[in-house]
């Protein structure tokens, strides 16, 4: 049973990380959903015991199932849902303003924006100096994504 749990958690987490590295916002969200479920499953697996339902007083010395992990997983699931909703909302709003969910395209647009902004602010007499910082900025904005 433990091996099965470990395998399923491993596959879920691995697939989640794989999707997380894709340059597409919705796949990233899907990857996070998988990782969150891997975490939930870990919680479940961490305290899985067989026994009576943990309601009321246990008769005699029969084993009672551990209710705590279920309560924790339920809470974590709800938080996971909220976060997924927020991320999907963010993705939609990115799509609305940029008409793309491709991360490469988005960072290209952002770099172009940054250059445009700098150019607008740049005074004419300091053109040379600011050209340099434009380049830095483009390099910086492309790097993290």
């Amino acid at each position, binding site marked *: 049973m433990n091996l099965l749990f470990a395998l399923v958690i491993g596959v879920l987490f691995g697939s989640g990380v794989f999707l997380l590295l894709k340059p597409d916002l919705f796949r990233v969200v899907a990857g996070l959903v998988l*990782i969150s479920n891997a975490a939930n499953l870990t919680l479940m697996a961490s305290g899985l015991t067989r026994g009576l339902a943990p309601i009321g007083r246990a008769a005699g010395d029969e084993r009672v199932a551990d209710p705590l992990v279920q309560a924790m997983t339920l809470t974590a699931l709800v938080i996971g849902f909220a976060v997924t909703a927020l991320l999907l909302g963010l993705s939609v709003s990115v799509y609305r303003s*940029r008409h793309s969910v491709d991360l490469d395209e988005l960072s290209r647009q952002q770099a172009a924006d940054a250059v445009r902004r700098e150019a607008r602010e740049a005074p004419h007499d300091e053109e040379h100096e600011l050209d340099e910082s434009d380049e830095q900025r483009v390099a910086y904005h492309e790097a*993290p994504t």
Partner: protein
Amino acid sequence: MSLIALPLVILWPAAILLALLDGRRRGPGMLAVAALAASFAALAVLLANVVADGPQDLVAGGWAADVGIRLRVDALGGVFAVVSCGVLLAALLQAVITGVQARVTPALTLFMALGLTGLFLTGDIFSFYVFFELSMISAYALTSARGGGRHVSAAFIFAVVNLVGSFLFLIAVGALYRATGTLEMQAVAERAAPIDPTTAIVIAITFFVAFGIKLGLFPFHFWLPSVYLAVPPHVAAMFAGALANIGAYGLLRFGAAILPSELALSAGALIAIGTVSIAYGALQAIARRDTREVLAYSSIGHAGYVLVAIGLGGPVGLAAAVIFSIANALNKTLLFLASELRGRLTATAFLVGALSVAGVPPTAGFFGKAALFEAGIDAGSIAAVVLLFVGGALSFVYLFQIYQHDRWRPRAEREREMPRGHASRGQRSVALTVAAVVLVLGLWPEPLLAIGEHAAGELLAGGAAR
């Protein structure tokens, strides 16, 4: 009802009420400020009680002690809660005076305050996770609150990276529960000693990665600059001054109090990562010109100082980590709040913050740095002392650069870049108040130092009790 629950009882209904109101109006904004001020006052009283009489407990809902969810406040949690709440109060006040741009900002700030207060005051690992998510979700939403492609993509990166950290934390909580059979921090600390060392170190590393991501330490820092650049200065102040405290507090609580032997085992690695973080943050900050970008990289460097202090360990090292975190939270808040305001007085306030970051007396930052030096000398590590000195010198260089760039130029040129106009009296007074706090703590540092030592003593006593 005990005083412990009071801040939460004030913040929770106020946050829910404000979520229904339009935060751009004056009334709801002032209501949010009032709620935050009330919970700040309650936390300050609570901290005073804790320092005088020792830690306090409250089991929620009147359950038996080992069944219900425990709220617990000691000097460490109390002081972080007070500082975070104070930082949020200053930042929100500044936002309300300037004019809030998004209707949800006051409500989200209160939710963030609620999450932070809750996680500093909880005695239960799982409620720690719940409160931690509450404050992080408000932070994601705050980043994207102004709309527009740039902010939303920054919020997306912020959320995705930090969520991976949160899920790692959750997995570590599950593993710790599996290993110890309880969720209560004190009981976990007592039962953590006999668990298998391999298991314990895996759990400790998972916690470290989770908090490293929040704190923005070197290998996990990549989300931080783009977020600080995309948000308005008061939100950046909230992130750098309040939210980043989660990382420092988490490392202290889960490292020094719950898994002390694993912390001692990995001290070398912590110091190495901290050193890289300090060097990377400082060098990147020197290469930047934009004030907020410089401050963002400087935050990465300062996370490194906290880590080095925790790595040096012992009563002096842990006290230094607490004192430095507090001083740093105040400095960053001051710098971010003053960064976009023009005028002679706010320039002075900015200068106070800059000198405090560099560790020049009489400022709070001096005592933060002094505590770190003391920890380095106490541990007998010359390398640490040299590192701290070089780091301090570098921070002086980059802060002076931005001061010069922002304030020492012809007026016409500056006005083109900082078009907000002269700071109003209200805006100025918030920045000046924070500057005054930094100065007062520099002139009369006894409370700060005493609380730091007290918190470190409690952490070590918790570790020794097992």
